């Protein structure tokens, strides 16, 4: 099938406005008979379900958690970008667009990103109206802060819990529709298959996780808003339940997978402490505003960090990138940390960590406080105590979290941090309407590949999730549904439903019947290690080829040796996990193939073969300025290319030096 991104004609600035007013509409009476299924209840899913229900469509929303409010969007800490220019510091839609394209290392679609920037101010307005308690200045106006990779203050926030507040806003709006009967919410339901009839997405099979029953649901359209697949690495900052299953099933039924290898590794996470570790915890990017990152100049230096004098510390980010220093984009900071640790300069027991030190800024804040309080001859210790107080007010909850997890006091000695998998820019390939190549099947939020190119800037994920759900899909879905008004609801007795349900059932039965000797986690950990070592922060052709073979071996072992206890018709968390891990194993293989095929370095994707003399990532625009859209064919894949055209931006090698 040829790939068509359906980008509207016209000037970049006018594309969306013009297109919006020409998309076919569905009249209110017809909307009532059109059913939409939405998988996932995070920012994208909840906002889409709400907005579409408000328009009058019949909506069903599914989530595997016990409540839509648990979706992992809730864990986002830092903030949400919007081109409001409230700070009068020169921000504009164009600048947000430009920063996002540049931050994504020129691997995103211009038209989509411009639309995202254009919509961004409306998101803030909508959330404020819902009662989201954004941080305010004393005068009552919205407050902003700055984030990595930008030079303006455009990030709106609610302390370190922005994702939580935005999600609860969307959740409230969703529950309002549930209360009015316009949305049917199916919690503790997991989508396990899509149903395709005559080439169009027409429904899904979901498993009621409490009873184990398989249910058939018909819809005129299916929206996948199921988030990212970072858990393919086993250890990531994702929630334990975050998975690829929904989009992977869609992929296997024909939807293209876009740029699967584009993974964001976040530089400031709490390092792994042992084999028992089940997940990694992020320390907000905002900490990099006030912390300085360093390692000892001497490899294997075992001294206590506070005993290492200034002259023997290597502030490597400030050394390598004097212009941006500690505030370089995430991919750059992560790679630099890995480089130091690989060279033997890492710290802590595992030697896979670097220091994030607040003492310098504590002293700076302390001096300001001392001056304010008129303490002109304050001792250093007094100044430090005052500074600690300031830092405590700004980041108290993060410092407490660190102390809970590590048992160390970050006020006294520097934090140890290391990069961890955080977000996946890749996802289902979608066109400008957010529709996959399968008619009637959409992907929104992190589940699609669209807006962040090869690296996402901080505070942009929340923006995209809500943009897709609140302000894009309610318009673009009309382009498809306006042609579906004559389609009557298809009975779930249809052969396609029958077949889909049987395939799900067979697979679950198969998982339960293997009765091998190894747990699901065993395979997940094995997969994660291969992915992290060979398809993680640095990748090379040889490693990726090995990884593909190793993953194939893991897949074979999994299907012969896994042990899944319990029964099908029961709450069975191990069975849920087994299904998800089986999908991760298949996805892992595709990610390695994609990484292998892209022999350039861009954003979070670093191919060791493609770097400058100083070890910086080197793009190859000549050969790789495209989106890789992978087509599935029985564990084989063909790549389709969507060429990226940059007509409004001058493409250049990123530099943060």
């Amino acid at each position: 099938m040829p790939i068509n991104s359906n980008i509207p004609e016209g000037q970049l600035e006018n594309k969306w406005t013009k297109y919006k007013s020409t998309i076919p509409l569905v009249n209110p009476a017809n909307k009532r008979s059109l059913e939409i299924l939405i998988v996932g209840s995070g920012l994208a899913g909840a906002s889409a379900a709400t907005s579409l229900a408000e328009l009058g469509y019949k909506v069903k929303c599914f989530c595997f958690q016990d409540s839509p409010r648990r979706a992992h969007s809730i864990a986002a800490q830092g903030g949400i970008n919007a081109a409001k220019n409230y700070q009068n510091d020169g921000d504009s839609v164009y600048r947000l667009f430009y920063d996002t394209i540049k931050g994504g290392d020129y691997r995103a679609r211009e038209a989509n990103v411009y639309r995202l920037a254009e919509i961004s101010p409306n998101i803030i307005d909508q959330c404020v109206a819902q009662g989201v308690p954004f941080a305010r200045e004393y005068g009552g106006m919205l407050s902003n802060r700055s984030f990595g990779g930008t030079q303006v203050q455009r990030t709106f926030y609610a302390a370190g819990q922005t994702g939580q507040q935005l999600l609860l806003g969307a959740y409230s709006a969703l529950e309002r529709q549930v209360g009015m009967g316009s949305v049917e919410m199916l919690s503790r339901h997991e989508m396990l298959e899509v149903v395709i009839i005559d080439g169009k997405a027409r429904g899904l099979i979901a498993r009621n996780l409490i009873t184990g029953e398989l249910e058939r649901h018909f819809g005129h359209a299916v929206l996948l808003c199921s988030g990212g697949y970072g858990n393919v690495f086993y250890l990531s900052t994702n929630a334990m339940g975050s998975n690829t299953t929904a989009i992977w099933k869609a992929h296997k039924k024909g939807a293209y997978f876009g740029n699967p290898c584009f993974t964001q590794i976040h530089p400031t996470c709490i390092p792994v402490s042992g084999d028992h570790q089940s997940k990694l915890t992020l320390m907000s990017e905002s900490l990099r505003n006030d912390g300085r990152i360093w390692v000892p100049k001497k490899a294997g230096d075992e001294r206590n960090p506070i005993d290492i004098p200034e002259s023997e510390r290597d502030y490597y980010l400030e050394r390598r990138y004097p212009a941006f220093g500690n505030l370089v984009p995430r991919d750059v900071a992560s790679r630099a940390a890995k480089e130091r640790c690989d060279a033997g300069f890492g710290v802590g027991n595992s030697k896979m960590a670097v220091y994030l030190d607040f003492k310098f800024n504590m002293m700076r804040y302390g001096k300001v406080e001392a001056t304010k309080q008129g303490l002109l001859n304050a001792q250093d210790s007094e100044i430090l105590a005052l500074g600690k107080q300031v830092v405590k007010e700004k980041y108290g909850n993060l410092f407490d979290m660190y102390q809970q997890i590590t048992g160390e006091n970050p006020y006294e000695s520097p934090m140890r941090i290391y990069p961890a998998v955080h977000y996946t820019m890749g996802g289902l390939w979608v066109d400008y309407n957010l529709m996959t190549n399968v008619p009637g099947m959409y992907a929104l939020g992190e589940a699609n590949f669209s807006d962040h190119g090869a690296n996402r800037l901080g505070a942009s994920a929340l923006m995209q999730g809500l943009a897709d759900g609140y302000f894009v899909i309610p318009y673009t879905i009309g382009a498809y549904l306006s042609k579906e008004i004559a389609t009557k609801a298809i009975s779930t007795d249809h052969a396609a439903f029958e077949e889909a349900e049987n395939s799900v059932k067979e697979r679950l039965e198969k998982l339960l019947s293997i009765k091998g000797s190894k747990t699901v986690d065993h395979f997940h950990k094995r997969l994660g290690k291969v992915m992290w070592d060979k398809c993680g922060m640095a990748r090379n052709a040889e490693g990726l080829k090995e990884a593909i073979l190793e993953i194939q071996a893991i897949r074979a072992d999994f299907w012969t040796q896994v042990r899944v206890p319990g029964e099908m018709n029961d709450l069975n968390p191990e069975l849920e996990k087994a299904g998800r891990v089986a999908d991760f194993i298949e996805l892992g293989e595709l990610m390695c193939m994609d990484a292998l095929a892209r022999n350039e370095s861009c954003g979070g994707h670093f191919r060791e073969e493609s770097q400058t003399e100083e070890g910086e990532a080197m793009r190859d625009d000549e050969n790789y300025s495209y989106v890789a859209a992978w087509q599935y064919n029985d564990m084989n894949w063909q790549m389709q290319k969507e060429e990226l055209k940059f007509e409004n931006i001058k493409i250049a090698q990123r530099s943060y030096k």
Partner: protein
Amino acid sequence: MSGNMNLTLKIWRQRNTKTKGALVDYKVKDISPDMSFLEMFDVLNEDLISKGDEPVAFDHDCREGICGMCSMHINGRPHGPKDAITTCQLHMRSFSDGDTIVVEPWRANAFPIIKDLTVDRSAFDRIIASGGYISVNTGNAQDGNVLPIAKQDADIAFAAAACIGCGACVAACKNASAMLFVSAKVNQLAHLPQGQPERMTRVKAMVAQMDKEGFGACTNTGACSAECPKEISLVNIAAMNREYLKANLISTED
């Protein structure tokens, strides 16, 4: 490794909502103090699976203290012995070698047990659906800065909005009352100008739904707030009482 612990666990096992449950003893060995409490459960479950037993079902998701899904009553306290954290943030260094740890599900008739330590908290969703929102359709909004909100009000609203809906308040309350949860939402919206139009109807609807779900009444013991992982204040309950009385006694709205 030195410092690792051997522990006895007494865990509530219950097949489903209809059957009776009981505490069952388990031993776990060589637990590192750096593990989180839920990672210790992972170890136990791995062990149970390899022995051919059924693992313990428990709710968990983000494992960083924000999603509100984890829900264990540990040694007589929701989310365990430390204040202001969730179970997933509890680490094994809070225990010592040889300890016996009793783990039970949240107990409230409004939170029926689904299996083992997993309970059904959908009553909370229904309470929010009854009125815990501001009725504004997508696209209705005016500019975010049109309504200035005093920082103090924004901060109060934020502190109330920090609720993660885990249900520890209900679990801790001797009456299994949901007042802290409901009042946090009522008070958040009552402190914002956007929340004013529906202020009176909201509190009435939410309290009615809360009562309907079978939660107990509040007797102001303060256990909810003391056990709340997000330290939601009791002031919210007083504020909701005030709102509710105002809505019923003074407001002319039906």
